[in-house]
């Protein structure tokens, strides 16, 4: 079994065992629930302003889970093992990101369906919103890998991660929200895909470079 697949499976079972699935999901649904409470339950208002707010909830949910991404590996020495492995660290970071997407990103995108319905998004737009959330989650995670890697050694780095990744979350949020509200859907989706590809291409390299420093 290749190192990539081994790490991918290890991460999946670790995140699964630690209830990794439920925490961001609960956070996502909770944050989205606050929206109609703050805006008032007026259906017409929610229909125009509500669906894009799914993206805020999704961005916050991913952000909140990033802190432990590399910290545990740094503390218990798994990171040193990864660096000793013959597989390039970049590939292993990508494996972690992929596992993170499976445990956090994909469920978040699926949960986006009922949440957007509750926020009065039109039913026929739901599949598109779910697909966009899945792609956007990949972009969030690609950026998040870098944020988590540069702050891995910092105690209670949660707020710091949020500050660092926040500006880079802006493009997926902008274009994802455009899709959710049904403006220029095709162009926005292509740009969102571009963000996800760019983040997945650059993220693992920058994150691996930072992790090498962290383990020194």
């Amino acid at each position, binding site marked *: 079994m290749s190192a990539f697949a081994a790490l991918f499976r290890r991460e999946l079972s670790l995140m699964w065992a630690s209830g990794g699935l439920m925490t961001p999901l609960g956070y996502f649904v909770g944050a989205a629930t606050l929206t109609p409470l703050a805006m008032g339950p007026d259906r017409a208002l929610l229909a125009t302003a509500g669906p894009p707010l799914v993206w805020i909830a999704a961005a916050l949910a991913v952000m909140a889970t990033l802190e432990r991404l590399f910290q545990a590996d740094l503390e218990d020495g798994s990171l040193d093992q990864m660096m000793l492995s013959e597989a390039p660290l970049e590939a292993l970071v990508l494996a972690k990101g992929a596992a993170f997407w499976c445990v956090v990103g994909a469920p978040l995108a699926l949960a986006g369906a009922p949440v957007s319905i509750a926020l009065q998004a039109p039913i026929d737009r739901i599949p598109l919103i779910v697909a966009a959330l899945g792609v956007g989650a990949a972009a969030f995670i690609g950026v998040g890998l*870098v944020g988590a890697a*540069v*702050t891995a*050694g*910092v105690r209670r*780095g949660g707020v*710091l991660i949020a*500050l*660092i990744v*926040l*500006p*880079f979350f*802006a493009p997926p949020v*902008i274009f994802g929200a455009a899709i959710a509200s049904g403006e220029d859907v095709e162009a926005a989706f292509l740009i969102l895909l571009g963000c996800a590809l*760019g983040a997945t291409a*650059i993220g693992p390299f*920058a994150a691996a*470079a*930072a992790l090498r*420093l*962290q383990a*020194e």
Partner: protein
Amino acid sequence: MLSYFANPARFMTLSAWASPIFLGIAFVLFAVGTPWALWLSPADYQQGETVRIMYIHVPAAWWSLGIYALMGAASLVSLVWRHALADVAARSAAPIGATFAAICLVTGSLWGAPTWGTWWEWDGRLTSMLVLFIIYLGYIALWNAVDDEDRAARLAAILCLVGLINLPIIKFSVDWWSTLHQPASILRMGGSAIDESMMGPLFTMAGAFFSLFAGLLMVNMRAAIHRRRVESSRIRQEQA
């Protein structure tokens, strides 16, 4: 030549007189540029007197981008050659760049109120500039959060290089999402669209902002180097 000046001791002797010179040039240019921009240059035929905000807004915007680009170059040098002076330069430049970005945002908002009729518009240029400001803050926060200074330097350098992505987005935002902010009017195909009477004060102020940056950067870098020396001599004394 760069490696000649990259020696910290040589930098200290050079900057000891270069930083007051730059600050002096900045003072002179501000002394010339401010009255020129605020009183002597003509008012705009459409905007009237509010156009004078440009002479602060535009140079601050230019150099907040320029400083980030310079930090990016310093970060690259720091990662590739592990040069301590490059770390110090990038770290010392960040608060100045953040301040320039803040000046740009605040003056832009003040300018927008009378001319566009709004203090803030979520247009591509304004948003990407705000993003640059937040990237500056994140960069500074990362430097402060990591205890080990060498590690902080290189982690911050990685972050800085990733953030470089934002610079072309800011530059071209006015062409990609053309809403309220005007497109480029000086560096553009077909020459500048700004009247020559406004170029003089604009470039004087741009020069003033740059000299101010260069002078302050050297002051900051000298302070950082002095602080490092004090710390290392304290450690040496404790060990002795």
